[in-house]
């Protein structure tokens, strides 16, 4: 940072100079050369200067007005939401007015400041030296010596036992805080990912787990027409809110048959078939059902599953078919209701390393 220190004038000389000269000298002493400096309006009081000043002041004035308007609107404008016909709809202007007035105030300040620099402040061009040369050799040598002697002082070079034990302690320092702070977060997944709430102990649900809608009603085969589908859940505590249980119950047309995977031919019931709604790619509900082409489309990454091939993926990034829920029937008071006979025979949803 020391440039042209030899040329720095003394305090008496500086006091004799005009402030502008002193400023230029000061800049020089720091390696900054002002190569061009010119007042925009060297003749004070011209119409052009007044116009420029008015322009900048107008911006600031506009900002002030917008600020006042903002406060008024903030306090006095109605902002409560109403449905159309149930109250004033003027709330829809509250946010736009606030944003617009705030924006106007800020833009006024901003453009005012920039125009102030462009129109009123002197024109200037300055050049600063980079001071980019490497440190002088003496500095580097002294620093190198400081570092090396300091290191020798520690004795680490020759005290092997010290180094060894320090390394061990350092290792502990690196790992123990991590363990202490992060350790409690670790939870063993076990095989939770492989089970859902559809799998309940048979003692509790000897006839199978009831299949219900989101409002709790049990699902009966007569509810759903050919070409229809419903989202169903297990009728157990937490069944509706769990992320693994949503299931698609689909009723096919009488002339449509499902080509089942091995060992799952009896998982359907009549025209009905049920698949996990959770896409096996990344877990979004794959619930866009095209009833004529019997395709299930997942909206997230466009995987498509062919229902008649046991929900096998036929397009898109999914690789595994949707797990099928084994359906059964329970008759209660003369009405048939669906049950889930047992859990899916494979983990639902996205795959993971140890997936069975």
């Amino acid at each position, binding site marked *: 940072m020391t440039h042209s220190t030899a040329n720095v004038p003394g305090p008496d000389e500086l006091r004799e100079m005009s402030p502008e000269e002193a400023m230029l000298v000061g800049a020089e002493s720091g390696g900054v050369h002002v190569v061009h400096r010119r007042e925009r309006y060297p003749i004070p009081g011209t119409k052009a200067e007044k116009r420029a000043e008015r322009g900048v002041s107008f911006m600031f004035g506009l900002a002030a007005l917008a600020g006042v308007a903002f406060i008024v609107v903030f306090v006095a404008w109605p902002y409560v939401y109403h449905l159309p016909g149930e109250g004033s709809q003027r709330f829809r202007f509250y946010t736009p007015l606030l944003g617009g007035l705030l924006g106007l105030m800020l833009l006024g300040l901003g453009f005012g*400041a920039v125009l102030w620099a462009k129109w009123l402040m002197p024109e200037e061009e300055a050049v600063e030296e980079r001071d980019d040369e490497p440190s002088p050799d003496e500095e580097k040598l002294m620093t190198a010596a400081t570092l090396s002697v300091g290191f020798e002082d520690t004795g680490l070079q020759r005290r092997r036992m010290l180094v060894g034990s320090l390394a061990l302690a350092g290792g502990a320092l690196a790992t123990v805080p991590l363990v202490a702070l992060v350790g409690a977060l670790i939870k063993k997944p076990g095989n939770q990912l492989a089970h859902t709430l559809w799998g309940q102990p048979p003692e509790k649900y000897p006839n199978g787990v009831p299949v219900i809608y989101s409002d709790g009603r049990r699902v009966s085969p007569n509810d759903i027409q050919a070409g229809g589908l419903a989202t169903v859940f297990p009728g157990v505590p937490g069944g509706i809110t*769990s992320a693994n249980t949503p299931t698609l119950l689909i009723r096919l047309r009488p002339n449509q048959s499902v080509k089942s995977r091995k060992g799952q031919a009896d998982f359907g019931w009549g025209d009905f078939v049920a698949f996990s709604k959770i896409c096996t790619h990344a877990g979004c509900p794959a619930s866009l059902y095209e009833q004529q082409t019997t395709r299930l489309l997942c909206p997230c990454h466009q995987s498509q599953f062919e229902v008649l091939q046991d929900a096998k993926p036929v397009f898109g990034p999914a690789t595994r078919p949707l797990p099928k829920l084994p359906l059964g029937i329970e008759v209660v008071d003369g009405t048939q209701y669906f049950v889930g006979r047992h859990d899916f025979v494979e983990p639902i949803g996205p795959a993971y390393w140890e997936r*069975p």
Partner: protein
Amino acid sequence: MTATRERETASEPRSRRNQPRTLLGKTGEWFEERLKVARPTRHYLNKVFPDHWSFMMGEIALYSFIVLLLTGTFLTFFFDAAMGEVRYNGSYQPLQGVEMSQAYASTLHISFDVRGGLVIRQIHHWAALMFIAAMLIHMGRIFFTGAFRKPRELNWIIGVSLIVLGVIEGFAGYSLPDDLLSGTGLRIADAIMLSIPIIGSWVSFAVFDGEFPGTAIVGRLYIVHVLLIPAILLALITVHLALIVRQKHTQFPGAGRTESSVSGERVYPIYAAKAGGFFFIVFGVLAALGGFAQINPIWLFGPYNPAQVSSGSQPDWYMAMLDGSTRLFPSWEIHGLFGRYTVPAVFWPTVVLPTILIGLALAYPFIEARLTKDRAKHHLLQRPRDVPVRTSLGAMALTFCIVLFISGGNDLVASAFDISLNAMTWGGRVALIILPPLAYVLTYRICLGLQRHDREVLEHGVETGIIRRLPTGEFIEVHQPLGPVDDHGHGELNYAGASVPKRMNQLGTGALRHARGFFRPVVEKPEIAEKLAEVEESEEASDAAERRDKIAVELEEVEAERRQLTD
């Protein structure tokens, strides 16, 4: 040269004790007595910043960040980062009585029942989108002009880290309200975590405190979003700016520009006024956006429910690249690894690809230095056309990213333009493979063409548009040479890395350029010029002349250095 007001004070004798009398002076003296700030203050106030417009894009990001901090603090006073279930009881009727998490309910509360809450929430979200967009165009400028070269590799690494952290911060932020759209995004994030080999399910269970979604994730994301990442961002931004102050800014080659100096404006007062004004302008644009354009209308999405999803579900724009890569990646999964393990398909486009891209970005300065064997320090920038390989690589990367971004929204593109969804997927896959190399080749040829044109103008001069008919009947266009010509009429100037004037009104350099001003050319009125001359004469002639001489000497020195550089 200046107004005469300073002359009066200078001729007034100062008191012996030379105590300052103005408020500014007294304040300065207060700090000086305690901290000895006289020289450092002058040092920093006199720092010179170049004023090219493309150097202000990083500032957009900085100011957006400040807006995020301000609006975000407001939001923390009202947001409830808990996942307990409540029944909504606020003023948005279409959700009355619906069961939702406290996080969602408190966001609805901010949007409908807190005065001005919605506009601040919207400004916050727009500022987040702007923050990352600004960082990306800033990164583009740094990349294409070679500002990342030695000695600025460290700043490049900090910059890339800022972008990565910014994206994570944004994801955490928009997942806080626990609405249907962001909850779906969290579900996908869970699948991504699960896909990591060996530790995937452990990572997922650690983050979500058990199976998805659990009741901890919003609270944890909240702390990450308001404390951890903002702290790291602030620290990195501070170091980023400190490095610029220490190493000084780069600048484009041009008249009077050398590797050992930087020219522009001093901080105080001109650059500070412009930069400060720009902060208010950015803030103002964000405020206008926050008021006029609705963003993230969570009341339309509904609360998160794992059994529900909306079509057209997309993450915020900066995540669209990952969404696109996930949509396009084929259904390739590894089964039976080591006998019984699975590597799911999601792993490659969402974990491996971003790691490779970020790694490449971080390592690029070193890769380029190694390949070009360039170990010199560089403070002058390069025009993109002068480094066709780097520019073409950048165009290739940009094309790759744009194809992925568009594929991230391919269902909306499909329905807007009546294209089959399946065709969009296949089209994206094919485009991803063939478009980037095409972009490389095209950009390379364009760079070479531009380089040739520069040299052609240096040799043959600027086309004036004046057609002359020679006595022999031939038509020629008159060219204005840019410098001395040899006997054949060819210019003798060498290309020096600066932009070559191509039109008559670009002739002249820097402040002497004839075409100044943005909307209209700035032309000095002849009466003013006359008056100026009078004023100058009326000043003490010797002083003025002295100053002029001194500056002429400096300019000559600078010119000599420049000539040295170009020879």
